[in-house]
């Protein structure tokens, strides 16, 4: 092989270059410490390196997240431990307070401590962690609880949760989230009213209508989904109710107020509601007593609708009613007594209650039972410790307003005064609507030094912005108040969805209940409008007579008030030919009618559809018919018996809701009770056993403090009906044959009244206003209190029987009830209540303890995660080192080695290369 001279040098040079490249690379490694500079240096190692750096970055982030979560949980833990201490103390105080040997001052001191604990607990519930309220759910910038306090004494009456139920999570690892918050409601308001509907779907609802939650109007449109309805409920925070849609599409309502229940009411959009038939199945408050189911002659349950002053009669000559009382005293006892009720007509349920009370007192002895009209339900309670009451059936019949005796229907049917339920946003309130209120010729006003005068009609202009019945009522009342003649004499009120305008008979002397309402006929250019009709008045009284109660239904016919057009979506109701009717001698079973989904534009369309459905039933066909009847200019759809079919006899007809109204459509027919169980019908729970409310009640019970400061001129019940006592009203107190009187002053309170009674009764008896609004007379020495009677007289000397009923303790659900509880053992009851409270306190404690336990376990999990992350971090760093970093020792040794090679090569090269033959030839 030939070796040319240039070959030697070029080979030598390229080899030398390779060595130099190696040296350069090794030098770079030693200077940067990194094994690779660019992806080509080792693609798979670079890939690993990128992966490891991602793992490292996320692990370090997770550690940050965990640290953040730990901070928040630790803060929550400290706060709740403090709450725990508060509640422990409350428990001690409760036990102390229930001791019978304490004086009133002792109790006041305890109550004041409870109040302090309460206030501190509320402060704790509003804790914020670096500016974020920890108990507000997602509403971290909003104070968790708003305090609703009594303006007179500054005491907290209730709190309203202003947060939501959101749970905030921290990302503590790949696909590992951990909640780090507890919403305040679940801790401080655990055991508050809730309602949950039936399962629906995520689709648009397809029906429409309106309903009320705590008197706030909610409109439902066919295109709305359940979530839209929930959103609308939540938007109006004044209802103090939060709505959620559960994962299985149920509407869930939760009261945000520590004490307030949820009141639900259908306004429109349902078949039977629109026919003035209220949903059946009232809520029973049966704790130490029972609520007597009022049955009619068919055995059907009657509604819980209040029956103000509706005459009742017992259809049978006399009836026996069996009351069984059992208790724990004397080693346990059970007593059954038959009570015979006279076949007379009672003016009201309250009268009936009085009658039963009297008989029961005779049968069982005094101070055992309390019988009263609890908002249209006859309620029998016992004060016997651990007692219970059983009541047998009672058959009642009602006398319809037209005088006919209604044995089959019940006494709720009557429309009290001239108005049908007024739909919200009543048609016609367009700014041109007006009507007049006239105190008729029989009404007169006497002012000091004036002759009695008859007033001119006063015109009321309706505000176009009125959105609900309540708005209309407020509007009318404001205008009445502005009028110096009508002020105090006339008022508008919401009577179960109806607009009702009444004379109040209080204030300065007013003559008889003469009131005339008339549509205004304003001059051109504003056209006359039938405002009253639009407001639901279907009879316009034209005479000087007091507005007569107009029957919405005559026997066996049920009226449609004309809320047209109406949208129906598969609602059902049943038509039953009652026992008074028969076909070929037998009483047929109820027939369910289901209304097809449609918009019914006229009453005729509606009647036609009902008749279509009736025709499908062999039973109802020819026996029942739906007709359109015009009453007072308004069309009604009545369902009537025809008596024309073969073999049909009698006129007895009953309708019942199969598919209840709007709320039922939303699935809200069956609310749940805290602590489990469901309740038929739409009910309300007046007891809210949550932590805050328990403390408030404890304080109030210990204080004996209550509605004592409420004004006598501002008493009203849950329906908004006022029972105010105008200044000047005289209250006469009879006891032991003597009497004294108390004149209601402008700012007289319940406490004033109680004091007046106490001063009359003398030193041996004490009188106090209880938290629940009842005035209670008791004897500290446990001896018997003699009979006390209260009478009230208005300015014209008329008896104010409505107030007297309440004073006698048998009246309906007043917020501020006034009840004279004579002849009862006060201490027993107090003991009982406080003992009950201990249960509630214990439950609150348990809640806190279990929450603390959850926090503990989460903290442990976070700590564990921290350790894991640290390990992962170290391992990843290690891997990354191995993968990315140059081995310095190796690099340096290699560098040295290459350097040696280079030096040797240079040395040799310089000597070897030039030699050729020429050198020898020379």
């Amino acid at each position, binding site marked *: 092989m030939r070796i040319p001279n*240039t070959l030697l040098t070029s080979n030598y040079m390229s080899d030398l270059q390779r060595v130099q490249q190696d040296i350069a690379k090794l030098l770079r490694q030693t200077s940067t410490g990194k094994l690779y500079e660019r992806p080509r240096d080792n693609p798979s190692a670079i890939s690993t390196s990128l992966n490891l750096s991602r793992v490292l970055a996320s692990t370090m982030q997770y550690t940050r997240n965990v640290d953040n979560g730990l901070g928040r949980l630790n803060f929550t833990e400290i706060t709740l431990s403090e709450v725990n201490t508060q509640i422990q103390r409350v428990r001690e105080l409760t036990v102390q307070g229930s001791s019978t040997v304490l004086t009133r001052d002792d109790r006041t001191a305890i109550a004041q401590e409870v109040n302090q604990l309460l206030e501190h607990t509320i402060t704790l519930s509003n804790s914020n962690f670096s500016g974020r309220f920890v108990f507000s759910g997602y509403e971290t910038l909003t104070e968790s609880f708003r305090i609703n306090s009594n303006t007179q004494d500054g005491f907290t009456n209730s709190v309203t949760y202003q947060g939501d139920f959101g749970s905030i999570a921290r990302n503590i690892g790949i696909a590992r989230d951990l909640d780090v918050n507890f919403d305040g409601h679940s801790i401080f308001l655990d055991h508050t009213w809730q309602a949950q509907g039936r399962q629906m779907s995520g689709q648009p609802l397809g029906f429409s209508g309106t309903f009320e939650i705590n008197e706030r109007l909610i409109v439902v449109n066919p295109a709305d989904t359940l979530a839209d309805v929930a959103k609308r409920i939540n938007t109006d925070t004044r209802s103090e109710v939060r709505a959620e849609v559960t994962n299985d599409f149920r509407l869930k309502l939760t009261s945000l107020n520590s004490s307030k229940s949820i009141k639900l009411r259908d306004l429109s959009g349902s078949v039977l509601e629109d026919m003035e038939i209220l949903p059946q199945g009232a809520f029973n408050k049966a704790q130490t007593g029972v609520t007597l189911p009022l049955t009619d002659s068919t055995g059907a349950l009657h509604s819980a609708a209040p029956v103000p002053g509706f005459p009742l009669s017992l259809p049978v000559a006399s009836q026996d009613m069996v009351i069984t009382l059992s208790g724990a005293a004397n080693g346990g006892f059970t007593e059954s007594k038959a009570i015979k009720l006279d076949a007379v007509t009672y003016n009201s349920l309250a009268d009936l209650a009085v009658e039963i009370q009297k008989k029961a007192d005779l049968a069982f002895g005094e101070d055992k039972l309390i019988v009263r009209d609890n908002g249209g339900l006859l309620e029998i309670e016992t004060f016997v410790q651990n007692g219970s009451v059983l009541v047998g059936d009672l058959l009642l019949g009602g006398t319809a307003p037209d005088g006919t005796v209604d044995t089959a229907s019940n006494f709720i049917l009557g429309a009290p005064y001239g108005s049908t339920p007024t739909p919200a946003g009543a048609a016609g309130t367009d700014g041109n609507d007006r009507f007049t209120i006239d105190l008729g010729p029989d009404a007169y006003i006497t002012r000091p030094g004036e002759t009695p005068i008859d007033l001119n009609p006063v015109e009321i202009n309706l505000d176009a912005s009125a959105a609900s019945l309540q708005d209309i009522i407020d509007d009318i009342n404001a205008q009445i108040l502005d009028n110096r003649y009508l002020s105090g004499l006339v008022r508008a009120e919401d009577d179960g969805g109806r607009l009702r305008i009444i004379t109040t008979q209080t204030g300065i002397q007013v003559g008889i209940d003469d009131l005339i309402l008339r549509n205004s006929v304003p001059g051109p250019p504003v056209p006359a409008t039938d405002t009253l009709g639009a407001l639901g008045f279907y009879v316009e009284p034209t005479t000087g007579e007091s507005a007569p109660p107009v029957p919405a239904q005559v026997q066996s016919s049920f009226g449609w008030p004309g809320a047209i057009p109406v949208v129906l979506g598969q609602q059902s109701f049943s038509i039953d030919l009652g026992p008074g009717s028969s076909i070929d001698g037998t009483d047929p079973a109820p027939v369910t009618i289901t209304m097809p989904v449609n918009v019914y534009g006229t009453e005729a369309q509606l009647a036609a559809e009902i008749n279509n459905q009736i025709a499908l039933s062999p039973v109802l066909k020819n026996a029942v018919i739906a007709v359109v009847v015009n009453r007072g200019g308004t069309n009604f759809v009545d369902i009537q018996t025809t008596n024309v079919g073969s073999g049909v006899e009698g006129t007895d007809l009953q309708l019942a809701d199969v598919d209840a109204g709007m709320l039922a459509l939303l699935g809200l027919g069956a609310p749940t009770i805290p602590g489990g169980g469901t309740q038929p019908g739409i009910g309300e729970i007046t007891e809210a056993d949550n932590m805050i409310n328990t403390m408030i009640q404890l304080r109030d019970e210990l204080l004996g403090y209550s509605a004592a400061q409420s004004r006598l001129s501002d008493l009203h019940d849950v329906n908004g009906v006022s029972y105010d006592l105008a200044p000047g009203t005289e209250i006469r107190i009879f006891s032991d044959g003597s009497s004294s009187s108390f004149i209601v002053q402008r700012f007289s309170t319940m406490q004033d009244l109680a004091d007046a009674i106490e001063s009359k009764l003398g030193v041996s008896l004490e009188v106090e206003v209880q938290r629940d609004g009842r005035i209670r007379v008791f004897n500290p020495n446990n001896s018997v209190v003699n009979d006390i009677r209260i009478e009230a007289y208005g300015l014209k000397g008329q008896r104010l029987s409505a107030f007297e009923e309440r004073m006698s303790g048998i009246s309906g659900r007043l917020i501020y009830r006034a009840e004279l509880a004579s002849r009862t053992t006060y201490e027993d009851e107090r003991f009982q209540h406080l003992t009950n409270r201990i249960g509630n306190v214990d439950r609150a404690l348990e809640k806190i303890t279990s929450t603390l336990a959850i926090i503990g376990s989460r903290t442990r999990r976070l700590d564990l995660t921290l350790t894991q992350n640290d390990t992962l971090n170290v391992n990843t760093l290690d891997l990354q080192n191995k993968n990315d970093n140059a081995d310095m020792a190796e690099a340096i040794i290699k560098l040295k080695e290459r350097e040696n090679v280079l030096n040797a090569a240079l040395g040799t090269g310089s000597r070897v290369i030039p030699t050729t033959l020429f050198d020898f030839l020379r």
Partner: protein
Amino acid sequence: MLRGTFLGLETSKKGLLTARAALDVTGHNIANANTEGYSRQRVNISASDPLSFPGAFVTIRPGQVGTGATVTSITRIRSIYIESQLHQEHGRSTLYQTMSDAYIRVEDIFNEPSENGLNSLMDNFFNAWEDLSNDPESASTRTNLAQAGLAMTEFVNEQDRRLDREVANINEQLQDRVDRINQLSSQVAVINKQIIQIESGGESGQMKANDLMDQRDAMIEELSKIVNARVLHNNDGSLSVLVQGHPLVNGVDFHEIRLQQNEADLNRPYIEFSKSRIRLDIRAGELGGMLQMRDVELPTVRLEQEKLVTAFTNRVNKLHIGGYGLDGISGRSFFTDYRTEQYGGSSALPAGTTLDTTLDQLGFTSGDFFIQGQRIEITPAEVLASTAITLGDLFERIERATLDVRVSIDGSLGFQRVVFEQYNPVDSDTRLAIKDGSSNFFEQLGFDNATHEKYFLDPPYRNSLANFSLNPQILSDLDSIAAAADDGTGFPGPGDNRTALGIADLRNDSRALLNSSFGEYYQGLVSSIGATALTAQRSHSTQTLVVEQLVERRLEISGVNLDEEAVNIVKFQSAMRPTPAP
């Protein structure tokens, strides 16, 4: 017959002249021992023609008289075989060298591994979302997040510019190389002409223009580094140079090539013969490397990165649009959304259809269909009443399978219809493609006569890298960053961090982008860039060795060995000395 008296002298003179010539060539060799491209030359010496003595006495003394030696030719020692091998291997070597060098710049564009590469920037972005989830009420975490987003968008925009610049650089260099090819090939043609003239001057095969041929070889070698050139040797001593079978030089003719503007793609001018307009598809040499980079490698890298950014933009935006900002407003995107195209059904869905409506309720049949070339299947079980999936599930499946498609129920025309929209596609040429498979899926969705709309954007949409930016609303009002989720009942509250958690979780979503997570996809992209670069570099190293060996072989044959030449001097000097004189 008598011989001339001076015949012997003449013979001696010839010997001297021959030796002299040989010594001259040897000297030439020695002088050029280190000349690049020089091939050693050899003197071919043969005996000159003898004299015959015809005559009467021929039979008595027959014979011919030698007349001495003469130089027949001076030739180069060179192997044509090695030469042509070398041309080929040069082409390959420069191909890989060009690619390897260009990939260094691609690697620089990605800048991995480093703290400033997209890998870290994505980590920072997701970490910023996590920080926001820890404190959704604060302004500082929002600022931090916006900055992390900006860092990412700016990096990607810069990548777009640098990838563009890379293409522009290649185009400039292409022009330079084409000019050089024309220069070289025209010179080869000129030399060809000179050689033909010289060589045709002597007797056949005697005149060799050795040094010109060396010059020409050097030019061809340079040419073979630029382009894959094949050489044909013509009988007249000229050479033809072929590229892709088309003659660049044909004897004395040379064919000019030029860079021609590509009307279809302004960024991709191509090379053609100026006269015949034959387009050249060059696969080797520097030119081959540049074209490979410009037309294959860079577009691939760009497309992969564009896919990543398209998916990233759309996944983040989809979640962000569904979330609520601190100001209680939802429906805003985090990155700027570019809607480019839309297909909408023309007939209405059944009344009351929502995302919760099941396929069973809509009466769907099973089957498959194609969106953006992705096959999506609805199995028979999924349309059963008991197990039916919902429209929302189906939409999500479609969005997951594609990079740039969003599906929704739209009511803007006054009735409910399904709309397929394309957002932030990889580039403006990517169209929205929907196609039925075995079932009439689109007809079932109401697409019997689909309404199609293409949105022309101002400024025009280029590609997902160039148009990657933060929504200006986000920058102007940090409260519009959505940390809170939407559960259908309005703004949940400032403490809600569910959307932030959801977006942060995208980093672990193993199906975020065609069955891999963003990080894995990016990691794959970087490592494939590294692998390609490494392959090019390794091939270049191997090729360099091959070329070196061939050069060695050539040197072995054509190189000057001074020892040998020294021996030759001694040989020819001694040949001069003893020449007998009569």
